[in-house]
C-alpha cells in the first residue's frame, strides 16, 4: 500500500477524518477527489485547489500518484487513526498542518471599506463572467437577462435589503434564503453567494446577523440544495471559505492599497463561477457594512455586533 502524506488540512477536513470510519468516493475530478460520509465532504487535491475548510492538500507528486490509482466514484474508503485508505493508497493526515484563516482585523473603518469596495467593484465589473451572479450584483441595471438572472435579481435584492436593514428593531426579520440551490454548477451559484456573505458577515463582526442567516440556511438547505453545497455552507457559517476569499476580505478590511488584483484572479480560478459568486456575496455584505448608518466606526469584534 502506497503511503501518501497530506500536507495541509482544513478544519472541516480534519473533523471529517476524526468523525468518520468509512466514506464513499463521491467524485474524482482532474484536480480533486471528493469523499462523502453521512453528508460531510472532504476534498482531496494538490496545491492548485488552494486551502479551504474542506480541503486536504497533497504534494503535486502525491496527488499525481493518488489520481493515477484512485478507485472510481462509488468506491469505499476506510478511515482509521488519521489514515484514509483509498484503493492502493494510504493517506496519512496525522502530521498534516491545520490550515487556519488569518484573523480578521479588530476594527475596520467603514468609510475606508466603502471606498475599497467601490474600487473592487470597478475592477471586477469588466472582468466578472457572464455566467453566474457576480454581474447581477455588480451591475445596477440588468443586462440581457438569462432565466438565472431574472430569478436571481429579486432574491439578491431581498438579501441586500435584509443586510441594509439590519437594525435592532428588525432583529426578528427572517433572513432570505431563496438563493439556496439556485443556478448551475456543482455548488449552485446562489449557494456560493451565500457562502461569501456568511464569511463576510463574520469578518466585519456582524455575528448576530451571521448566526441568523446561518440558522435560516441550515433549516432550509436539506430540501433546497445538494449535500456538497450544504457542507460548504456549514463551513461558511463558521466564517470559513477558500483562502483566496479570506485574502480578499482581509485586503479590504486591513486597508491594503490597490484593487486586490491577485486575490480576484485567485478567486477566478475557483470552479466555473464559484469564486466570483462568493465574491458577489462578500461584496453585498461589505457594501452594507461600508454604508451602514448603525455604527460610525469599524467593528469586527463580537461584542459590538447587533
Amino acid at each position, binding site marked *: 500500500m502506497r503511503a501518501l502524506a497530506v500536507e495541509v488540512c482544513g478544519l472541516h477536513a480534519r473533523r471529517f477524518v476524526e468523525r468518520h470510519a468509512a466514506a464513499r468516493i463521491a467524485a474524482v475530478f*482532474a484536480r480533486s477527489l471528493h469523499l462523502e460520509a453521512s453528508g460531510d465532504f472532504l476534498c482531496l487535491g494538490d496545491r492548485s485547489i488552494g486551502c479551504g475548510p474542506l480541503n486536504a492538500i497533497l504534494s503535486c*507528486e502525491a496527488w499525481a*500518484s493518488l489520481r493515477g490509482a484512485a478507485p472510481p466514484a462509488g468506491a469505499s474508503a476506510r478511515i482509521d487513526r488519521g489514515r484514509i485508505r483509498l484503493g492502493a493508497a494510504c493517506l496519512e493526515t496525522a502530521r498534516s498542518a491545520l490550515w487556519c484563516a488569518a484573523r480578521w482585523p479588530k476594527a475596520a473603518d467603514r468609510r475606508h471599506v466603502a471606498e475599497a469596495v467601490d474600487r473592487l467593484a470597478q475592477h471586477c465589473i469588466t472582468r466578472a463572467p457572464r455566467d453566474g451572479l457576480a454581474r447581477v450584483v455588480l451591475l445596477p441595471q440588468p443586462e440581457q437577462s438569462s432565466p*438565472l438572472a431574472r430569478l436571481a435579481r429579486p432574491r439578491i435584492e431581498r438579501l441586500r435589503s435584509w443586510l441594509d436593514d439590519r437594525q435592532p428593531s428588525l432583529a426578528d426579520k427572517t433572513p432570505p434564503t431563496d438563493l*439556496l440551490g439556485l443556478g448551475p454548477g456543482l455548488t449552485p451559484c446562489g449557494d456560493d453567494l451565500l457562502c461569501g456573505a456568511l464569511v463576510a458577515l463574520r469578518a466585519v463582526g456582524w455575528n448576530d446577523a451571521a448566526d441568523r442567516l446561518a440558522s435560516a440556511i441550515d433549516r432550509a438547505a436539506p430540501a433546497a440544495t445538494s449535500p456538497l453545497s450544504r457542507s460548504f455552507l456549514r463551513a461558511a457559517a463558521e466564517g470559513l471559505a477558500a483562502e483566496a476569499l479570506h485574502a480578499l476580505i482581509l485586503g479590504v478590511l486591513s486597508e491594503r492599497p490597490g484593487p486586490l488584483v491577485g486575490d480576484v484572479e485567485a478567486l477566478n480560478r475557483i470552479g466555473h463561477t464559484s469564486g466570483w459568486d462568493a465574491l458577489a456575496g462578500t461584496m453585498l455584505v461589505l457594501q452594507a457594512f461600508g454604508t451602514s448608518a448603525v455604527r460610525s466606526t469599524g467593528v469586527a469584534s463580537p461584542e459590538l455586533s447587533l
Partner: protein
Amino acid sequence: MAVVLNEIRRGFYLDSVALMRISRAVAALPGVEEAGLMIATPANKEILREAGILSDNSAHAGPGDLLIALRGKDAAAAGAAMTEAQRLLEQPRRAVAGTGAWQPHTLRGAVQRMPDANLALISVPGDFAAAEARKALRRGLNAMIFSDNVQVREEIDLKREGRELGLLVMGPDCGTAIIGGVPLGFANSVPRGDVGIIGASGTGIQEVACLLANAGRGVSHAIGTGGRDLSADVGGITALMAIDLLDGDAATRHVVVISKPPAPEVADAVLARVGRSRKSFTVCLIGGQPTRALPTNAELATTLSEAAEAALGHPLPRYEGAAPQLAARGKLICGLYCGGTLCSEAQLVLRRAGMAVASNAPIPGAARLEASAAGHRLIDLGDDAFTHGRPHPMIEPTLRDGPLREALADERVGVILLDVILGWGIHADPAGELARVLAGRKATTPIVIASVTGTDGDPQGRSAQVRKLADAGVIVAPSNAAAAALAVQGVR
C-alpha cells in the same frame, strides 16, 4: 412540434466547468432550442420551468440529482441531443474509471478539449508519427515525438518547419522531457528549479535530473532533442532552439547539455551559441571530446555524474557502504542496462580505469561486443536488436531475466552491473522483478551492483526500490557512474 426531454441522474457529480461545457455543447446542437444541465434543486427546477424545458416527470428529482433538460424542434432532434448529452456525460467518468484522464482519439479532438494546450506528445507507430507531428505544428503546437522509426528526411523537414513556425520538435525517439514541471514520456517527478537540461538521451536526462533532485536542486525544463538531432544531417536544430528557449527563460540559471559525441560542425554551432549566452553551461559529451575550445561560460563534464556535480557546484554523495568483496571466481564485469546512455557512461568509467570493454553500443575506444567476447561486457538491452517487436526493458524488465541468469551462472563473471530506472511510464516495480530473479542465489555467484535512477516522488518511490534491492543482497550505489566505479574496485 417541439419536444421536451428530461433525464435524471441520481447522485451524479460532475465538476462545474464540465457541466457548463456540456450544457453549452448540447444547446449548440442542430435542432436544439434550449438545454440545461443542473443540480435538481427546487430553485433550479424553477429556472428550467421558466425556460420551458422541465417535464412533469422531473418533479421527483432532488437536490442530490443531476437533471438533463432540453427542448428540440422535433422528437428526432431532441432524441439525438439527449444521446449526445449522455455520451458527453459518460466520457469523463469512463476516463476516471480507467486511465485517469480522458483520452482523445484525434489531435483535433484533443485541441477542442484543451484549446490552450501548446504541446502535443506523439506516440504512434513510426510510419504515422511524422504526419501527426506535422498536424500538431500546423495547429500551433510544439511536438514531442516519442515514436521511433521515423525517417531522417522526415525529421529534418519537421524540424525546419517547426523552426519557421517558432515551434519546438522534440524527437523522433524522444523518450523523456520535463516541461514546466510536467514529466513527459519516461520521466521523473523532480522539483522545479533553476537548472535547464537539454538532452539527446532520455536516460541521460533522467539520471542528471534525478541526481539534482536527490541533492535538493530542481529542474526548470528538460528538453529532449532525439538521438539524431546533433548529427550532420539534422544540424542540431532542436538543440539550438532549446538553448534559445532556456536562454530566454527567467527561471533557468544554468543549462546542462547532454549528448553523445555530435558531428564536429554541429558541435561548433552549438558551442558558438552557448558562447553567446549570459548563462553558465555544462556540456556533457558521453565518450567524446569537443573539437574546439569551450566558451568561457561553459565547462565540460565527461559523465552524467560530473554534469550533475557541475550544476550543483559541489560533489555528489559518495558510496559509504562496505567495499564489494569478490567471490572466488572470474573477474569480468557484466553490465546489463536498460538505459543506453547509462551503458555508455559505465563504459566510459571502465575505459578511464584502463579497462578493455565491449558493448553492443560501444562508445569511442570500446570494442564491438562480437569482436571481444572475452572482456568486460556492457550490454544495452534497450537496443533495437533486443526490443524488436517487444516492449523496452524499462517497461518490461523480464527482458533482462535471461541475460541476468546467464551472467549469474557464468564462472568468468565477478561483478554484475545493473541500472534500475524509475519514473512515469516505467514498470511499477523493477527492483522487485530483479529481486525475484536474484532470490536464492548462491553465495559464490557474482556481486551485483546497481544504481537507481529515480526520486521518491516517482510512482515506484526510490527509497522503496533501494530497500528491495538491498534486501536482495544488491549493492546500491548513489549514481550510475558510482556503480561502475564500484565494479572496477570490485574486480581489482
